[in-house]
């Protein structure tokens, strides 16, 4: 019985903690670290998504999937894929472009960027 009383008292003593004067500063530090960690994570996702997007676009162009898309019997799709195929050919023959290959790749990069942005927004909404 005495043991139980003492243990109860000990529980109470442990629960009775002082309030530190710098508790506001401590909370601020934790929130700052949280913000920093969150920013780092967002940047990591952004960079990974960007690289992934670029790789995806590159693989799409190289795989010739756009050429195979021509088999789809729908007229608009065929026209679109034909255009894209021509564009991708132009992308591969960079030297033949009137405005330079960099523009083509910048456009592809921007597309990838857009995909990443949309994905991040969607992730944020979730």
């Amino acid at each position, binding site marked *: 019985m005495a*043991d139980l009383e*003492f*243990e109860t*008292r*000990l*529980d109470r*003593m*442990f629960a009775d*903690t*002082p*309030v*530190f004067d710098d*508790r*506001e500063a*401590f*909370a*601020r*530090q*934790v*929130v*700052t*670290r*949280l*913000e920093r*960690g*969150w920013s780092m994570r967002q940047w990591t996702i952004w960079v990974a998504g960007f690289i992934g997007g670029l790789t995806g676009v590159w693989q799409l162009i190289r795989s010739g999937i756009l050429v195979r898309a021509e088999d789809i019997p729908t007229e608009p799709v065929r026209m679109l894929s034909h255009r894209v195929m021509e564009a991708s050919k132009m992308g591969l023959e960079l030297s033949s472009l009137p405005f330079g290959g960099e523009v083509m790749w910048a456009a592809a990069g921007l597309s990838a960027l857009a995909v990443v942005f949309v994905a991040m927004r969607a992730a944020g909404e979730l």
Partner: protein
Amino acid sequence: MGKTSPPANVGSLHDVELATLAATGDRPAFGELVRRHGSAVRALLRRMGAEPSVADDLAQDAFLQAFERVAEFRGEGPFAAWVKRIAARLYVRRWRKESRLVAATDDGEASEGHGGEAFAATRIDLDEALRALPASERMCISLCYGAGLSHAEAAEALGAPLGTVKSHVKRGLDRLRGRLAPQDGAAAAGRQGHG
């Protein structure tokens, strides 16, 4: 008003509500939880034997970890107790890494510098009494009574046999009882006086 001072509506919310908000990524809500319970977590780590600066660093780590896992908090117990358990485990991990456990199992009285009778004659608070315990007993007592771990959970966290933890707790309790006894006597006298 500070930059991170919580809005009035956040300050008036219950811990469980704040935790629910934090689970959706609401950092100001979590900041309010840190403001409310930071001291308790820091105090526990100091009572476990951590240096103040180490205790503060670990408390921050514990809160960051708590934020990551806040969706797991169901409000079945106090939020502070939940974070304390996380913090205690973090400190135990660090303590074990520093190989203090092995040394501590055989260590003697941590600090008898206070002097037996003189120590007992003065009003002794818990912090002081804990400081006088051997590290292993202090750790086991803090884990079980401060962080609310069961003996089995403490044994698992410490990587020590259950029997060892139980005997550390028992010996620690006996020592604490001796050191904290004067207050009991005073309380008893006070009760008689009012009686």
